[in-house]
């Protein structure tokens, strides 16, 4: 520093002023609140209204939860135990827990079977849901449907084994003829499977009690188990059908295209409940005289058709979003239609359609409660029917409906969170 200006200027600062802390209103939580909660009269009103709303909810819900009674066997006892205080009678949930989960007809000593099937479902889903899980776990996933059928419905183990052997035989026959053409392989696979099932029918007939669990008829299924069964079975079945329908709708063959278009538009145009009415009262007219399908099977058929139309539309969106160059590149490699679809088109189209497929799956799972309208006792049907109509629990609304909301929210919300996670995992393009 020179003192050139020592005479002309009274004072020259030659050091930096130390950094000052920002004013209290512009720092930390106060700043955040000013910007986010009170940045204007309208925002302030909104904040105050919201805070009041939250306060109301908390003050009325907290004693209700905190005073909750978990161990009485009827509403009257619960009211007595509460003694005039505000409080929830959660004892309806504990007392009717098994009914809520399994319905009121499933044999009590067999509750372990659907429970086991549920936990095995989680194991079976791991390799499907997490791309990083060991690949040979997929073998268990392939076995799972047959195992679950045996566990839930009971009966001899031969039926699911024969069914599975049919698929295995079909798969090997398909592999054998696949190199000729996809259609030949498919035909051989179907023939082999039918032969195995036909032969296996004799084996099952010969030993009907081999490793048999107590058989449970379909009409005894109920509670949340029924929702889970309908949801998983229908989503799993509607995926392949939806893929075929989407491909058919994109096809250049007019007849096949129009069959698919009419089917999809018809299904999407009517409410699910009319389709359930069809399953309930009309479908029997279209089956051969004397056959007697389970109601649950008829409902599965109709819900699967319903879901597959929606999934077809989602996948069609994925197919349309694929750049034209992908189709042309596959053609220029000399791949035929089946090869290019399997190896090039579908993997990419499915990846694009994952969010849509998950949306359909969540919607479908929610729609399974509609079966309560055609007097099947799923979770909602159990609450509306046997539980609310019983003398012990007539008048318990909040606890039961709160439970239903809680269960569906947990399942559907976690599915949609999973799909967001998977989308990020699969995003292989550079952004």
């Amino acid at each position, binding site marked *: 520093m020179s003192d050139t200006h020592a005479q002309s200027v009274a004072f020259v600062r030659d050091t930096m002023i130390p950094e000052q802390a920002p004013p209290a209103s512009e720092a930390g939580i106060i700043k955040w609140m000013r*910007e*986010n*909660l009170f*940045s204007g009269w309208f*925002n302030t009103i*909104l*904040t105050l209204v*919201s*805070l009041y*709303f*939250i306060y109301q909810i908390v003050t009325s819900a907290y004693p209700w939860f905190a005073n909750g009674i978990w161990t009485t066997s009827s509403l009257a006892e619960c009211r007595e135990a509460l003694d005039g205080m505000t409080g929830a009678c959660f004892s309806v949930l504990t007392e009717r827990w098994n009914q809520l989960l399994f319905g009121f007809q499933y044999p009590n000593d067999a509750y372990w079977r659907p429970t086991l099937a549920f936990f095995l479902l989680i194991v079976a889903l791991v390799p499907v849901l997490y791309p990083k899980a060991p690949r040979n776990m997929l073998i268990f996933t392939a076995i799972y449907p047959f195992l679950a059928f045996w566990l839930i419905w009971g009966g001899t183990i031969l039926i699911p084994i024969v069914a599975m052997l049919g698929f295995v035989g079909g798969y090997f026959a398909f592999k054998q003829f696949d190199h000729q053409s996809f259609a030949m392989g498919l035909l051989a696979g179907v023939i082999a499977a039918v032969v195995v099932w036909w032969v296996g029918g004799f084996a099952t007939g010969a030993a009907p009690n081999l490793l048999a669990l107590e058989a449970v008829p379909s009409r005894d299924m109920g509670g949340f188990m029924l929702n889970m069964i309908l949801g998983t079975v229908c989503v799993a079945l509607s995926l392949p059908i939806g893929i075929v329908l989407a491909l058919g709708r994109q096809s*250049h*063959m*007019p*007849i*096949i295209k129009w*069959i698919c278009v009419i089917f999809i*538009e*018809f299904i*999407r*145009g*009517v*409410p*699910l*409940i*009319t389709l359930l*009415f*069809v399953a309930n*009262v*009309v479908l*029997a*007219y*279209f*089956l*051969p*005289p004397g056959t007697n399908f389970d109601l649950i099977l008829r409902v599965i058929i109709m819900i699967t058709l319903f879901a597959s139309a929606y999934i077809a539309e989602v996948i069609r969106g994925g197919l349309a979003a694929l750049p034209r160059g992908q189709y042309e590149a596959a*053609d220029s490699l*000399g791949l*035929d*239609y089946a090869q290019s679809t399997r190896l090039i088109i579908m993997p990419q189209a499915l990846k694009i359609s994952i969010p849509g497929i998950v949306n359909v799956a*969540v919607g479908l799972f*929610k*729609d399974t*409660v*509609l079966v*309560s*309208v055609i007097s099947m006792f799923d979770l*909602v049907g159990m609450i*509306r029917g046997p539980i609310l109509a019983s003398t012990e629990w007539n*008048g318990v*609304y909040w606890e039961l*409906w709160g439970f*239903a*909301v809680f269960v*569906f*929210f947990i399942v*559907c*919300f976690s599915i*949609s969170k999973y799909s967001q996670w998977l989308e990020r995992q699969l995003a292989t393009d550079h952004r």
Partner: protein
Amino acid sequence: MSTYSDPPSGSFQLSMLINDTRYRSYTFQFVALLLLVLGMAYLGWNLVQNLAAAGLNISYQFLGEPAGYDINQTLIPYTSQSSHWQASMVGVLNTLLVAFLGCIMATIIGVAVGVLRLSNNWIVRQLMSIYVEIFRNVPVLVWILIIMAIFIAVLPQPRDFRGDDAEASMFLNAFAFTGRGFYSPAPIFGPGSGVVVAVFLASIAGIFALRNYATKALYQRGQLIPTLWPSIALFFIPAILAFYIMGRPIGLEYPELRGFNFQGGVFMRNSLIALWFALSIYTAAFIAENVRAGILAVSKGQTEAAASLGMRPNRIMNLVVLPQALRVIIPPLISQYLNLTKNSSLAIAVGYMDLTGTLGGITLNQTGRAIECIVLLMLFYLTISLVISALMNVYNNAVKLKER
């Protein structure tokens, strides 16, 4: 699909139907058609046999016969002596009524929530996302039943309004919210009321004309004409003037407690209200997401460009952001309306007599004509869906970005 086949060589051979890509598609289509026809024939044959075994036939005669059941909420005159056809018409109108009311309320709530989810107020944002996630992830049937249960359990019964120290009282002495339903005053149109209504309609037409004129003036001459206050004035003043000039021809009939129930006024059953509210708040959660996505889809550059032209914030919203956001919002919005209409068939769970309740419910059970009833039911919903999607296509073509 493929165009890489060899050039035609020689005459047509039968094997080319399978091996030649030019002809193979004919084989596939023929097989598909054959399978379809065979499948249809099989189902049809089963149907004929089953009907013969049950001694039934397909006939729509029953639609002309007296229905023999009462409907508790009707928009058109109906008695239990009316025909099944009239019962179905009552059902159709009830379906359309709840769908219409539901669409309006769902749009209002949905737009409000969608905008508030983008608010910079942290608490409001969180509350709105909680609302959206909870309502989206729980079946609408559960919401319908919950709201119905709340109505019955929480709201007072009409008898609670009786006596001097009644437990419940009417709101403004005009509205009664009871567990059975809502009562509100009904307008009574006296002589001369037609003039008032005509003046009111004319002033609404006038508002639209004024707005059109203002838009034209803005685009052609760059002239800004205020529309908000004139519109409000036009909405109220002529109609009120006409009302008093004609000597107050329109009166209100208030609901009154007689005996155990209210008489007079407009009565909306609890089932209608529960269905309406539940469908609205459920669909609103989806609409809120569409609105949010639509607003986020307008790139920030558009707002900044408009600001750099010197436009004020509300003009930016009206003239730049909203027109572009609406293009994104409206198609999913309309499919939400369709979903709401289809979900209104859940009315049967709370006993609201929509088409599913009349034609698909009581008529079906009374006449046993399951196939006919369900075919008609499906046709009705299919018609609505196809009409709405046709309208949507027209709209989409109208607002499509004109590129190249």
